[in-house]
Structure formats: structure tokens, C-alpha cells
């Protein structure tokens, strides 16, 4: 597993893919996603509310 991880991070293509995915996600998170549950996935509001609950 360590070798797979090392090989994954030794390839600039994979590192670029992971970093660009992280940056795009951050951009989405801060600039594009609405402050209320999105119409594309209204269930996220339910899961968000559930995070206030406990077994």
C-alpha cells in the first residue's frame, strides 16, 4: 500500500489531478454553492440537519 501511495505521488500527472481537484472543490465550496440546500441535491439539507442529532 505504501508503494502504491508513493508511486501515485511520484507521477506529476496524478499530483496535478489531486491538487486541481482540491482547488476546484474549494472554489466550488466558497463561491458557487448556495447557502441553502442545492436544488441539485436537496437531500443535503436533511443530512445537514441530521448532523445535529445523535443516537
Amino acid at each position: 500500500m505504501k508503494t502504491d501511495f508513493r508511486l501515485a505521488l511520484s507521477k506529476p500527472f496524478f499530483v496535478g489531478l489531486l491538487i486541481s481537484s482540491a482547488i476546484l472543490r474549494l472554489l466550488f465550496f466558497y463561491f458557487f454553492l448556495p447557502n441553502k440546500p442545492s436544488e441539485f441535491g436537496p437531500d443535503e439539507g436533511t443530512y445537514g440537519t441530521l448532523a445535529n442529532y445523535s443516537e
Partner: protein
Amino acid sequence: MKVLTEPWQIIANNLPVQEFPGYGPDLYNSARTLIVPSSIFVRFGVSQLDSVRFVSSFYGICALLIFIMSVIALQRRNSETGNLKEVVLSNKNKLVFILYAFLPSYFLWSNLGLRESASQLFLLATFYLCVKLIDSHGFMRWIIIAFTPIVLMLAFGSRPETATLFSICALFFGFIIFWKVRNYSIAFVIFLGFALGQVFTTTPTVRASEVLIAAKVPVTETKSVQPQIDSELSKQCKHKNQHLAEKNDRFVCIFFKQYEVIDRNPFKKAKSQVLTTQILEYKRNVNRVEASSALPESSCTFNFTGVLQKFSCNIVELPYRLPSFLIRPFPFIDSGSNSQNLAGYENILWLFLISFGVLRALRKAKFQENGFIIAFLFSFLTCFATAAALYEGNLGTAFRHKSTILWSLLLILILTNESRVIRRRIY
């Protein structure tokens, strides 16, 4: 009997899940891999929506890393010595990796606070660990054997139905490995993961009762702010509104609702999951309620009874429902809202990927070095697509749930893209 809502739990997480409106505790238990980490962020003051989005997005990046590591692990299996110095990356494979990272719909689902990325991450991780288990030896083998059931259990905590289908396929292939080479490890870890998954997601039957507790004055008992409770002082409560004092703080005794577990049966849970196959039409109709893109109701008119009736109807309707699940909404057929049109354009790409993946799996799996693994991925893809096609009642949810097969479809494309067709492994 375990008391669920201990005072510290109430303070930490605010509300008992039994009182969650509408869905009750069932949804909590079948999504806890997403919800429990999110609740930690909520406790630190992050908004509930941001919390689930952050956790979902983090799972999405981890899934990408595990996807890359899975391809590397499979390439290492194929290399002559097993010591791969560098990953082979053709342009076609690069395109597949980019698709997994940035396919618009999956990228969106994994940015929103939904269960898609969690389910995909833990299924992919289970697949990866099983691949590693095949070739591992010694101490590392035992580490993987211990770790894989836990990862599969977490997959159950993100979407139990998908994890059940994955487990059934993996168990079947695990038994083939056992039959061929007497290696029981894959079947064992999957069975253990399935059992742990049932325990992890079982919703207990509870009994509500009211107890006297000592709450700090002033008592703030709203939906979002729970009273501050002193569990030691609560033992001194004799009646309601009794006043108590502890150092400089004043407390008053109030009635508080608590829940006791009276039954928690994972076998019932496993049985109900299997029996879901008999109520697919009911589930489909529930999914249709208030959906703008609802699929038509069943028009099956067979005169059989019981299971035979349901089975026949499912078989007859599959040729219509399967393409609907896989490639609809489709441009010019389902034009409507902007989001439906966008989904339609992406489905052109899905149509190409699915046709190409299925054709190549059928043509090449038999001769490819990783034929056994391709067969497993193909069986999971087929089982999921068939079950989901009969389960989904509207195009929107169907389009979202389709992303569950993305990783297996893209892995098939990468594995069948390898030009080297050398000796075929048994597994």
C-alpha cells in the same frame, strides 16, 4: 439495556435521533459514515450544511486517490516482477483519470453534502484492499484482513443497499477463489464486513420514558439549545421543579425524555434488506412522489401471484427501465429544465462509456490478464444497474445514483485498454 441519550450525548449533539422528524433514526443509521464526522464539525461551530459538504468533498478527493492507487496496484500485479518502478500512463488512461476526477455530475454530487462520494470511497477502498489481499503475505496480509471488514462496514454506513449488492458480488467471486485455489481470505473478509455492516446500520427498537434530571437555571429547552445537565446532581431529584444547588450554580429538576434500547437485531436488518427485492415497485412509487421527472407507473398485467408475479413484472419491465436508468434524461427525448438538459448532454458521454465498457469487457475479459477482476467489476456494474433500474422512480435520483457505477466502469475501461495479453490468471 443501554440508555441512548446520556446527558453528555445530549450536550454534545443536541438532539436524540429518535425525534428526527419524518425519517426518524433509519436515515441516520444508513448515512452515519457521512453524518457522524459532520456532527464533529457542527460541534466546533461549523454550519450543518458546510459540515456535510466538507466531509463529502473530502471523501471525494480520497476516492480519487484510492482510484489511482487501485490502477497502480493492478498494474503492479501485471508487471513481470511485481516491482513496478514507474506507472504506465497512456493518453487514453489519462483521459479516464480526468473523467473520474471531473465528470460534471459526479464532481457536483461529491461537492454537495450527499452520500455518493462516501459510498464510492468505501466501496473502492474495499475493492482495493481485496486486490492487495490476493497477493499479500505475512504480517501485511493480517493487517489487510483486519482492516477490510471495517472499511466495508463503513460502506454500509453510507448506503446499505449498494454495499449489500457489492458484498453479494464480492462473496460470489470470493467463493470462486476459494473453490479454485483454497484461498478463503476474500470470502472471509467480505462476510465479516457484511456482518459488521448489519450491526453498524441496524436501527434499534427503543422505548421512550421520562426521567427527572437536574438542569442548570435558567433552563433553555428549545430544539437547538438543550438544558445543561448535571448527572451526579440528577440522582438527588425527587419531584418536578425541585431546586438544588451545586457550588455557585443553581439547578432545577425537570422531566426529560430518554430512550432505552429494547431490541437490536442485525439479522432482521439483513433479512429486510434481502426482502427489499420484493417491494421494488413500492419503493419506485415512493420515489415518484412529487418528482418532476417521475417515470411511469408499472403497467404489468400478469395474473400470477406472490413472488412470481413480482419477478415476472420486473423481467418484463427491465428492457424499458434499464436504458431509462442508464442514459436518461437524453437530449430531444427528455428536454425540460436547464439541469435536465445538462444531464441529457452528459448522458451522451455516459452512453458512449457504457457501450464501450460493456463491449470491451465482454470481448476482452476472457483473454485479459486481469480477466477475473474485470468479470467482478462487470458483475457489480450489471447487478447495480439492474437493481437500480427497477428501484428508481424518477430520472433525477436515477441520474444521481448512477454515479455509483462510475468507478467500476472506468476501471473496466482502463483494464481492458492494456495491450499486453499475456497468461491469464485464475484470479
